[in-house]
């Protein structure tokens, strides 16, 4: 017997143990997300993928699908909440899309477009976050960090290196690097690491490749982020 739940009225099949977002992606339905990545254990922190299950808000990346669930996702109410979260991420860090070399390849930017975000809305925090250019091949621009912990998980679970971790608390939470100096150049990080590939924003950047692909020809310039879900299938 096949298992199904409904997502915005559409019947979605799933297999035992799948989360809502996994089942939705497999069925070609996009749910906005930033800290979720299909290859990693879900984190559930960005809350962008929040849906309503039987009327209750829950993160779709951590909630397992169950038969007969009634899930709402693409509604005006939920999208407005997701838009507010996206605006929060924008004002919390320092995001200047026009001058950012990740522009067009950035999931935060693409998600903001998807959700129709027209302004940051809230007052900017303008935190002071120095850049780390110590590594010969990679640059860390913490200004753009959204604390999704994908690099943490990739370095720990795939690379076996623990190059990255989160420290601090609350609004002071920040990414740290595994070296006494705190500098990436003093770690065993390389561009071949999985951790070098997963940053959804522009924190971990390869040096000397900034504008190799011109703006206008980048991932989300060609197709909006919602279309990537079917590509991944």
């Amino acid at each position, binding site marked *: 017997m096949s298992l199904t739940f409904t997502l915005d009225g559409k019947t979605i099949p799933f297999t035992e143990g799948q989360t809502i977002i996994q089942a939705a992606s497999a069925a070609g339905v996009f749910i906005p997300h930033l800290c979720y990545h299909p290859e990693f254990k879900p984190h559930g922190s960005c*809350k962008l993928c929040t849906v309503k299950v039987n009327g209750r*808000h829950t993160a779709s990346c951590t909630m397992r699908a169950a038969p007969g669930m009634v899930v709402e996702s693409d509604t005006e109410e939920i999208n407005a909440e997701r838009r507010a979260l996206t605006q929060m991420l924008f004002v919390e860090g320092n995001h200047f899309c026009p001058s950012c070399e990740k522009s067009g390849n950035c999931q935060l930017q693409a998600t903001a477009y998807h959700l129709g975000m027209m302004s940051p809305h809230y007052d900017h925090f303008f935190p002071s976050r120095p850049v780390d250019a110590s590594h010969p091949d990679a640059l860390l621009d913490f200004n753009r960090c959204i604390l999704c912990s994908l690099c943490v998980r990739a370095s720990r679970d795939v690379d076996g290196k623990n190059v*990255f971790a989160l*420290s601090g608390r*609350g609004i002071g*939470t920040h990414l*740290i690097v*595994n*070296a006494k100096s705190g500098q990436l150049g003093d770690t065993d990080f390389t561009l071949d690491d999985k951790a070098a590939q997963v940053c959804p924003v522009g924190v971990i950047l390869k040096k000397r490749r900034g504008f190799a692909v011109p703006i206008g020809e980048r991932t989300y310039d060609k197709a909006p982020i919602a279309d990537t879900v079917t590509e991944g299938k």
Partner: protein
Amino acid sequence: MALNAMHAEAVAGVVDRVVARHRRDASNMVQILREIQEACDWISPEAIDRLQETLGVPRTKIEGVAGFYAFLYTEPRGQYRVLFSDNITDRMQGNRALMERLCNSLWVERGKVSEDGLVSVGKTACTGMCDQGPALLVNNLAIAGLTEARIDAIAELIRGKVPLADWPAEFFKVEDNIRRADILLTADFKPGEALRAARARAPDEGLMASNMRSWREGLPSGMGGPIAVLDEIKRANLRGRGGAGFTTGLKWEACRNAQLKPGHRRIVVCNADEGEPGTFKDRVLLSTFPDLVFEGMTVAAYAVGATKGFVYLRGEYRYLLDRLNAVLARRRRDKLLGENILGIPGADFDIEIHVGAGAYVCGEESALIESLEGKRGTPRNRPPFPVTNGYLDQPTIVNNVETFAAAAMIALKGGDWYAGIGTKHSAGTKILSVSGDCARPGIYEYPFGVSIRQVLDDCGAKDTQAVQVSGPSGICVAENEFDRIIGFEDIPTAGAFTIFDKTRDMFQVARNYVHFFQHESCGFCTPCRVGTSLLKNLMDKLHNGCGSPYDFAEIEKLNQLLQSMSHCGLGHTACNPVLDTIAKFRPYYDQRMTQQDFTPAFNLDRALAAARQMTGRDDAAAHLSTEHGGAA
């Protein structure tokens, strides 16, 4: 002795000693870091080097944990680290002026370390001394009942570099202030009595402890003893005293029935991370009735078949640690802890105390478990719940201090006796921590069903405007609601009962609480991490005279977002004080909406305050005349 300049070898020696004491077990990371700091004054890069070597864990893990807890320092904070409790009650008792006095006296700027590296003075969340405030912590030891004279004496001791051990003992005296006692606080109870009563209640063949089930799986009839205890707890209709009110019997049963993986065991955790501002009843239970609490934990262990117990003691109650450990040692000697307790085969149980390090969020049970495991205190994704996958993935019950005390009394006197006290839906008694504007602040134990008005009368409160029940995450009760009752059917509470008379500005009360939540947000999820900061900024904006109806609408929108999108209870309840005070004390907000239209929070004149301070000027020409409220 300049401890901040300890030699690397000396630091390594301390680290090795502490790590060895903790059996090189990285799941004791929080305890290891706390003990290193107690010896070295801070956690230096050299200490982290050595830890990394001896524990074999990545540096990032150590720094990530150390960076999470407010009482762990990876920068030097002085040989004397003074933190003033900054709950609203401390404010009402004048803590700010006393902090100023100490800073001036020691020639140190608030939040900074003195130039000679001797002392730092800062503030911290409620330290649980609201009935005898204002209070402070010095190197995590509590000093209550602060006066100007005491502050001056403290300054003198610090200047004279007198070791804490030689400070006057009366400074560290903490009162119980028990004003009304009922079944728990009058418990005429001899250690071991409740366990013996529990055993006596079981049929003869049922003396097997439930943890023997692992080799007799599927034979619940062979465990009459534990089942009899569980039945009594259920019959007592005991519900959790930490605030949420979950049925204790169901929790215990779920843990007992959880499948054990090979090598796993069941765990009993006592949540003594009493961080809710205005609550201090667990402090009194632990300081004066520790046997009752430990016995309740042992009863729980017997009922669920647990062999390992933890008390998670909040860092602010560090001063209780040695005393509690002495009680545990005595109980071991008396065969009330250890193997085959009271001669019951397989009834093995022991208790270890972990001390927190300044993180309110660790009162949330899954964050508490993370912290017990030596990690950052971030609440887990649930399900699975702790009863099946708790401490190190083992079935775990987490209960409040008061719940265990009640469980011990139920084991002693039976569930029917207990269920007969209180109301139909709320059995037993509740201990209230009464503070604020009243003649007799302290501890009041009532049967459930007592009205707010009765408590106010008993504690000598006059002209009361509002009572914050159960702390900032609870509910703010206005005068027309004083006939409501304490109980799960009306006003549930974890115990805080903070009284505000008519001279108090309820906006400032809410603003203090919003600052608290902002400080205590763990930072894991976006809505709480950023939302509590935005909320704080908006409340400050209103306070600074830049508020307009626009900001008011923004506050309400943020509140909704925090409630719907946050990861845990902290975010869900962070807006309660604001929502309640808006609903019940609207005029305090209205008078702050001095602007008709949107006005920026940034105020140029206020921004120039730093320049005025530096130049020592405050004349008219040093100020900008602004159209809207410049005065901060």
